[in-house]
C-alpha cells in the first residue's frame, strides 16, 4: 500500500492491486462498506447501500481472477450513482418523496451495466437535489448532503451525493447527471474532478429525466485517470436514448499523457470575467498561470445562451411534472415546486424562441473553436456557501444563490460542450474551488489531457479536512 489512506487510493490503483492479487475484490468491498457506515452519517451522501449485491459481484470478480481471466480495467473498483439512475430492485427516487411510491426498477441503467461490464462494483445510490433542480445539495426529504471539507457547508448539487461521497473517500468513482452544472458544481465545491461529456455522448437510458434537451450523464472521480477509464468504459451508442449520438469511441485513457503541446488555450472573458468573484478569479488565475495562458477570448452570446437554457429547463421540466403538480403539489420541496409551477405557466413562444437562441449562440461559440482548442472558465462563483445561505452577490447586487451557483456552468451545457472540472484550493478559506476546462464538441480527450497535465503539475484532489480523524481509516 502507498502512503495514501486506502479510501483515497485511486480506482485504477485499486483495480491494479486486485488484478495482481495483492488483495481481493471482496476485501475492498468489505472495507468500503465499513467505511460508508463510519463516514456517511456525517455527510449523508448515500441514500441506498447495495451491500449484498456488491458482495456477490466481488465474489464473481475474485473467481474470475482465480480462473486467470481479466475482469476488466475497473476490476473490483467500487462506484456509486446519483439516485436518479435505475438500480435493479431499487426505487429510483430522483431525490423526491413522490417517486418513493413507484415500483422498484426492473433493470439497471445502461451506464451501470457498462461500468459493471468493465469490472466495477456498484455500492449504492446517492443523495441528490429533488428532481435535479438544484445546485446546493439541500434536500428536505432525504436530508441535506454536506461537504466533507466543512460540514457546515453545502456539497453543491444536484449530484450532491456524488461530489460528497467521492471527495470523502467512500466512492472512488461516482456517476452524476448535469443539465446546467449538476456534475460541475459539486465537483467544484467538493474539490474533485468531474467530466460532463458532450451532449449525446453517453446514453441516459434508465435514468430519471429532468430536461431532455439538456440532460447529460457523466463521472466524478479523484483523478483524471479514473475519469478517463470510467468514461471510456461507458461510451457507445444506445438506441433507447434518442439523443445518444452514434459516434466512434474515444480512447481518452491513452491520450492522457500527451500533455498540452499544440493546444491553443485561452481564458474565457466577457460573461466569464471573474472580477466580481475573488475566489473564482484566484482559481482561474492559478490554472492559467500553470498553463502559461494569457490570451483572453470573449464568449459572444453567453448571457443570452444562459437565459435560453434557463427557460428551456424551466419549461421542459415543468411539462414533465404537470400531472404531479396538479395532484401532489404538497409533496414537493417548496423551492422546487414553485419553480415548476412558474415554468408550467409560461408561453410556448418563449420556449421556441429559447431553442432558436440556443442554436444562434451555438453558432457563435463553434466559430471560436477555429481559433482555439480549449477555453478556461470558473466552475462556480465561489467556494461552498454555508448551508441555508440564500443570497449571492453578482456585480454588487444580491441575487438568489440557488440558481446562480450555476452562473458559469449553465452557458456551457446550454450548447452541450464537453467540460472537465479540475480542483484548486482557495487560500483564504482552505476550501476547494473548481475550474472548467472546455473543448469543442466530442473532444473529451482534449479536456482530459489538459486536466491530466494540470494534475501532474500539482492540481490534485486533496483529502478533505471536515471529516476529521476518519480520513485515516
Amino acid at each position, binding site marked *: 500500500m502507498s502512503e495514501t489512506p486506502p479510501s483515497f487510493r485511486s480506482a485504477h490503483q485499486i483495480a491494479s492491486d486486485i488484478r495482481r492479487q495483492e488483495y481481493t475484490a471482496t476485501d475492498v468491498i468489505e472495507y468500503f462498506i465499513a467505511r460508508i457506515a463510519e463516514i456517511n452519517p456525517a455527510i449523508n451522501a448515500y441514500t441506498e447501500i447495495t451491500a449484498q449485491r456488491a458482495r456477490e459481484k466481488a465474489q464473481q470478480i475474485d473467481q474470475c481472477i482465480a480462473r486467470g481471466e481479466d475482469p476488466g480495467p475497473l476490476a473490483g473498483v467500487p462506484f456509486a450513482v446519483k439516485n436518479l439512475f435505475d438500480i435493479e430492485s431499487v426505487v429510483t427516487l430522483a431525490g423526491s418523496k413522490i417517486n418513493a411510491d413507484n415500483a422498484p426498477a426492473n433493470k439497471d441503467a445502461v451506464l451501470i451495466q457498462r461500468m459493471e461490464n468493465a469490472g466495477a462494483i456498484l455500492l449504492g445510490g446517492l443523495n441528490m437535489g429533488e428532481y435535479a433542480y438544484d445546485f446546493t445539495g439541500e434536500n428536505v426529504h432525504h436530508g441535506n448532503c454536506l461537504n466533507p471539507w466543512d460540514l457546515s457547508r453545502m456539497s453543491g448539487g444536484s449530484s450532491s451525493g456524488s461530489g460528497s461521497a467521492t471527495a470523502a473517500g467512500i466512492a472512488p468513482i461516482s456517476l452524476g447527471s448535469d443539465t446546467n452544472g449538476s456534475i460541475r458544481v459539486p465537483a467544484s465545491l467538493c474539490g474533485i474532478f468531474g467530466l460532463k461529456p458532450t451532449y449525446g455522448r453517453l446514453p441516459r437510458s434508465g435514468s430519471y429525466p429532468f430536461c431532455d434537451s439538456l440532460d447529460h450523464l457523466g463521472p466524478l472521480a479523484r483523478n483524471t485517470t479514473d475519469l478517463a477509464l470510467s468514461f471510456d468504459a461507458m461510451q457507445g451508442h444506445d438506441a433507447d436514448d434518442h439523443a445518444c449520438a452514434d459516434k466512434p469511441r474515444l480512447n481518452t485513457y491513452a491520450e492522457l499523457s500527451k500533455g498540452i503541446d499544440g493546444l491553443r488555450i485561452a481564458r474565457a472573458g466577457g460573461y466569464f470575467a471573474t472580477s466580481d468573484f475573488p475566489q473564482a478569479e484566484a482559481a482561474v488565475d492559478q490554472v492559467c498561470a500553470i498553463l502559461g495562458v494569457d490570451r483572453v477570448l470573449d464568449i459572444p452570446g453567453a448571457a*443570452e445562451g444562459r*437565459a435560453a437554457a434557463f427557460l428551456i429547463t424551466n419549461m421542459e421540466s415543468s411539462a414533465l411534472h404537470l400531472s404531479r403538480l396538479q395532484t401532489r403539489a404538497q409533496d414537493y420541496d417548496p423551492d422546487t415546486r414553485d419553480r415548476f409551477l412558474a415554468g*408550467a405557466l409560461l408561453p410556448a413562444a418563449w420556449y421556441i*424562441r429559447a431553442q432558436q437562441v440556443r442554436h444562434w449562440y451555438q453558432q457563435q461559440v463553434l466559430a471560436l473553436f477555429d481559433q482555439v482548442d480549449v477555453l478556461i472558465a470558473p466552475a462556480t462563483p465561489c467556494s461552498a456557501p454555508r448551508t441555508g445561505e440564500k443570497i449571492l452577490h453578482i456585480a454588487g447586487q444580491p441575487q438568489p444563490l440557488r440558481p446562480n451557483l450555476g452562473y458559469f456552468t449553465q452557458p456551457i451545457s446550454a450548447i452541450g*460542450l464537453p467540460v472537465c472540472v479540475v480542483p484548486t484550493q482557495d487560500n483564504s478559506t482552505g476550501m476547494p474551488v473548481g475550474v472548467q476546462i472546455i473543448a469543442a*464538441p466530442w473532444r473529451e480527450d482534449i479536456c482530459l489531457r489538459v486536466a491530466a497535465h494540470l494534475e501532474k503539475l500539482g492540481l490534485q484532489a486533496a483529502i478533505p479536512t471536515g471529516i476529521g480523524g476518519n480520513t485515516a481509516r
Partner: protein
Amino acid sequence: MPPNSKLSDAFDARAYLDFTAPLAGLEINQDSHPEVVKLLNTTYAMAKMVYSVPLDENTIELAAVFTPCAKP
C-alpha cells in the same frame, strides 16, 4: 424582413399567474403565490434577454433532437 419580435415592457406577473394557473389546472396556495410571482418575473427577465437576440424572423427550424455540432 419583418422586425425582430419583442416582448412588452409591461408584464404583471401577479395577474398573469392568477389568470393562467386555473387554465393549467394548478392551484397556487398562499405560501407559493409570492414565490411564483417572483419566479415569473425572473423568467420574464430571461425571456427579455432571449428576445433581444436578432434572429431571422422568416425561419423556424427546430431540430427534433439537438445536435451539439455539425463537424465530426
